[in-house]
């Protein structure tokens, strides 16, 4: 075989040699194609595997850890939550509407494949600055795509996060997270077992779209890169497919079921057989095709959307067909489960490929990439920030920060999402985390996505910790107990040692924080090669976290609602300038040394908030993140002003310094004594800040009045910035 063939498919010469060895012969074109997608980074995790092994994945709450289509955690009452996050970055860079839409479609399939009914979608998005037309175009297209798909399928899009930074120019990040609810007895898995059981393709017909999509996802974007046709999504088809699959799973006829996502029929069949320690034989001429004359190669590598592979119990094929027919869908037997461990493909009876399943999965190469601390790291870390002073009046700084797109309200975005359908959305977008009630119980689940990639860039290890901490803070601020995470690890080209170093360090940080906060990793996705013209995105290990509220009545807001609420700060008054929004905006500097967070102390503070809320002491809570304490207070006082008096500290560091592990809470006057007692008992640094009052936000630091802004001035700025940029 000509080396050009495998090289064009993204395989290295060494990898090809390995294939020959595993096969014991020269593979044919189709077989090489199958190997190339199964061994792509996207499907094989060949680079990330050794690093991911270090994540904590176990805990009494975990019913399904990594390795399946989605993770599952127990929420009691025989109920469970299935959830997963996945990237659709490269398709969205090329075709933002369809890229984002099919990202949502794919992650929803991962969740209902587990037997769970999807109840919510979140999106974690990163774009270059909106000062550039192309970034506005990408934001508009991505939001329309999420809206178009999510609204149509009737699952609420309830939250997420959006940042703008120049490192994402040309390579936006589009990560979608889906959450589903299910009863323990309905958990389904992606396994092919039971020799002779039929293998069925259900849902949409197979077309020529997205061939080699998994490979495309595993290379850098360049001006010459020839993207495959980005898949087109059909939310109506997916809705029918979802209803049919859930109905079928409940009937008990399903042995195994898997979404045909990246690498389509190839990955679904080989992964199901691999998990089941079985083989699969398929007659490709039986696969319903949308286009005529499709070759076995095209059928196996197509990434047409809204398809699933199902292994039902033998003899129940008719039942499967009937369920799908009721929803107007096709279900076709294309093969059967065998016991010989081979993926065997026939075309009209003629053998066209025969590969040991384990060669595609377990035997995929694993790379221990060289890792090297990048030059910038020490340089930025040692940048002196001592002489930085407040550049402008505190009022002007606050107004500038609150109207920067990363901090400003994302209402323009979430107004385009149906966040209410299902009538379970208790905390809608705009809260610290979204909260959905669980019907039939008194419980609710909280969910959030977070990652400040500037922190990760400055110090990947600490930034990784902080991404998890931020997520946990958001979960706790709505009154929920953090349960577990899914992640979507977006990095540059791991073949470059300094990028691999970022990856290793960030994952170590995520692992450390997950251990400390007792939120195991239940799965996720790795997206490498996020580079454009040799420039990598900031390392962005996106964290999707789930939490549980035992009592729906105890959900917390993040805004003050009436006069006389007493405000308290949990944690230190001063933050750091290192990595802060202030520094980036007013000094055009992204630098500094991030202090290593004390995870034990942070856990203690989070537990204190949960305990205080459980005792009914709290009215609202909001964590201090980008922009610091002043921005946090401004966000809390959108409806009602406040007078704040901070006894001592450096004005700049108090108002705009950043340091995670700090939360502002509001308490009714008559509950303050009880709260203070609890804080003493738990050894929590708790400071009374002031109270809600009037229509201005007024802040004194060290006896000096330093900020007095009417909310009629900052509220419109906060609310309209993104809309004005997008619509003029």
């Amino acid at each position, binding site marked *: 075989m000509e080396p050009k063939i495998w090289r064009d498919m993204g395989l290295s010469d060494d990898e090809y040699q390995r294939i020959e060895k595993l096969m014991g012969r020269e593979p044919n074109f189709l077989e090489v194609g199958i190997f190339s997608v199964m061994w792509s980074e996207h499907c094989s995790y060949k680079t990330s595997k050794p690093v991911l092994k270090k994540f904590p994945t176990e805990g009494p709450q975990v019913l399904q850890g990594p390795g399946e289509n989605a993770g599952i955690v127990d929420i009691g009452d025989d109920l469970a939550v299935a959830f997963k996050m996945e990237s659709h970055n490269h398709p969205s860079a090329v075709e933002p509407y369809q890229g984002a839409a099919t990202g949502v479609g794919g992650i929803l399939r991962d969740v209902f494949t587990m037997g769970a009914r999807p109840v919510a979608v979140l999106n974690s998005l990163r774009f270059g600055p909106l000062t550039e037309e192309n970034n506005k175009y990408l934001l508009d297209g991505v939001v329309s795509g999420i809206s178009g798909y999510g609204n*149509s399928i009737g699952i609420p899009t309830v939250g997420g996060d959006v940042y703008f930074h120049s490192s994402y120019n040309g390579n936006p990040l589009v990560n979608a997270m889906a959450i589903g609810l299910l009863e323990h007895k309905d958990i389904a898995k992606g396994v092919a077992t039971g020799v002779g059981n039929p293998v069925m393709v259900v849902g949409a017909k197979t077309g020529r779209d997205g061939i080699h999509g998994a490979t495309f996802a595993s290379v850098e974007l360049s001006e010459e890169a020839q993207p495959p046709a980005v898949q087109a999504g059909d939310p*109506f088809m997916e809705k029918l497919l979802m209803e049919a699959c859930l109905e079928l799973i409940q009937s008990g006829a399903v042995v195994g079921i898997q979404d045909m996502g990246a690498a389509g029929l190839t990955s679904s069949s080989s992964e199901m057989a691999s998990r089941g320690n079985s083989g699969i034989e398929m007659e490709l001429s039986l696969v319903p095709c949308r286009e005529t004359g499709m070759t076995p190669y095209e059928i196996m590598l197509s990434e047409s959307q809204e398809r699933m592979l199902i292994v039902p119990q033998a003899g129940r094929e008719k039942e499967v067909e009937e369920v799908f027919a009721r*929803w*107007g869908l096709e279900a076709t037997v294309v093969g059967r489960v065998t016991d010989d461990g081979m993926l065997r493909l026939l075309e009209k009876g003629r053998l066209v490929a025969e590969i040991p399943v384990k060669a595609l999965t377990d035997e995929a190469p694993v790379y221990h990439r060289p890792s090297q601390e990048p030059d910038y790291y020490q340089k930025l870390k040692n940048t002196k920030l001592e002489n930085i002073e407040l550049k402008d009046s505190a009022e002007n700084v606050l107004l500038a920060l609150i109207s920067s797109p990363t901090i400003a309200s994302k209402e323009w975005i979430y107004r*385009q999402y*149906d966040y*209410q359908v299902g*009538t379970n959305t208790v905390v809608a977008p705009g809260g610290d985390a979204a909260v959905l009630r669980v019907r039939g119980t008194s419980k609710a689940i909280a969910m959030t996505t977070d990652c400040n990639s500037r922190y990760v860039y400055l110090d990947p290890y600490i930034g990784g910790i902080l991404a998890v901490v931020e997520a946990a803070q958001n979960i706790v601020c709505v009154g929920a107990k953090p349960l577990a995470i899914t992640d979507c690890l977006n990095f540059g080209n791991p073949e470059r040692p300094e990028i691999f170093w970022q990856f290793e360090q960030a994952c170590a940080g995520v692992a450390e924080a997950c251990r400390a906060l007792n939120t195991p990793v239940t799965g996720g996705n790795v997206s490498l090669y996020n580079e454009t013209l040799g420039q990598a995105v900031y390392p962005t290990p996106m964290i999707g976290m789930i939490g549980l509220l035992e009592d*729906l009545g105890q959900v917390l807001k993040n805004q003050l609602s009436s006069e006389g609420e007493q405000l308290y700060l949990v944690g230190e008054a001063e933050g750091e300038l290192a990595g802060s929004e202030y520094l980036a905006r007013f000094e055009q500097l992204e630098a500094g040394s991030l202090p290593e967070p004390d995870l034990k102390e942070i856990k203690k503070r989070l537990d204190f908030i949960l305990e205080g809320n459980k005792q009914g002491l709290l009215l609202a809570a909001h964590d201090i993140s980008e922009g610091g304490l002043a921005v946090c207070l401004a966000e809390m006082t959108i409806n009602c002003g406040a007078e704040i008096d901070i006894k001592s500290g450096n004005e700049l560091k108090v108002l705009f310094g950043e340091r995670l592990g700090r939360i502002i809470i509001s308490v009714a006057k008559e509950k303050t004594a009880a709260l203070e007692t609890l804080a003493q008992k738990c050894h929590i640094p708790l400071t009374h800040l002031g109270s809600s009052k009037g229509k201005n936000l007024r802040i004194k630091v060290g006896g000096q009045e330093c900020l007095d802004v009417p909310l009629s001035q900052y509220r419109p700025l906060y609310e309209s910035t993104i809309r004005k940029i997008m619509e003029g």
Partner: protein
Amino acid sequence: MKIGVVRFPGSSCEVDCLEAWRLVGEDPVMIWHQETSVKGFDLIVLPGGFSYGNYLRPGSIARYSPIMEDVIRFAKSGGLVWGISNGFQILTECGLLPGAFLRNVGLRYICAPQYLRVENSDLPFTNQYEKGRLIQIPISHGEGNYTIDDEGLKRLQDNNQIVFRYVNTDTSGNPNGSRDNIAGIVNKEGNVLGMMPHPERAVEEIIGSVDGREMFLSILKHWEGRSQGGA
């Protein structure tokens, strides 16, 4: 009261409607769109969502679902029919209500809290409101820009068929460009109502508003009065 909620392929608010009816003590049933009779029902709800993916035009394919023939017969014989959002679109497509829909002004989907004014409280659907009351009921649609010709509009106005109008509060107003700020209308006989806002999403404090509850209570009140009168 026997309440049926029709489920078309692509509907997404049918369960929300069932739950809202359960909250006021009713036991509604789901009707699959391929059924052919609504005999025995006292109210038919056409729920929101994206029936048939809203392909071609919202509601344009659902109107040909087998059940619709009998829904039309039911409506013409005086039965109560309530179309919400996509259900309203289906009602205009099948001719039970006049007018048609364009994409929202601004061409974007809008999901947001919305204020409405109750313009006609003398209906089976609205008798528990006071005329002129402002209520907050969320909207969620991409094609809610109601349009009708001059003559048709005049007829709606003259016959008091405009039931809800979008109104201004601090931030909201007409969100989608609807003609005459129309958010909901009723047929001349008063038994078929279509509205873009979602009252089934405004029946519990915990999900943001309870202003939609009176619609459910109005229908029950009307039904009790009627069944007692008939007995």
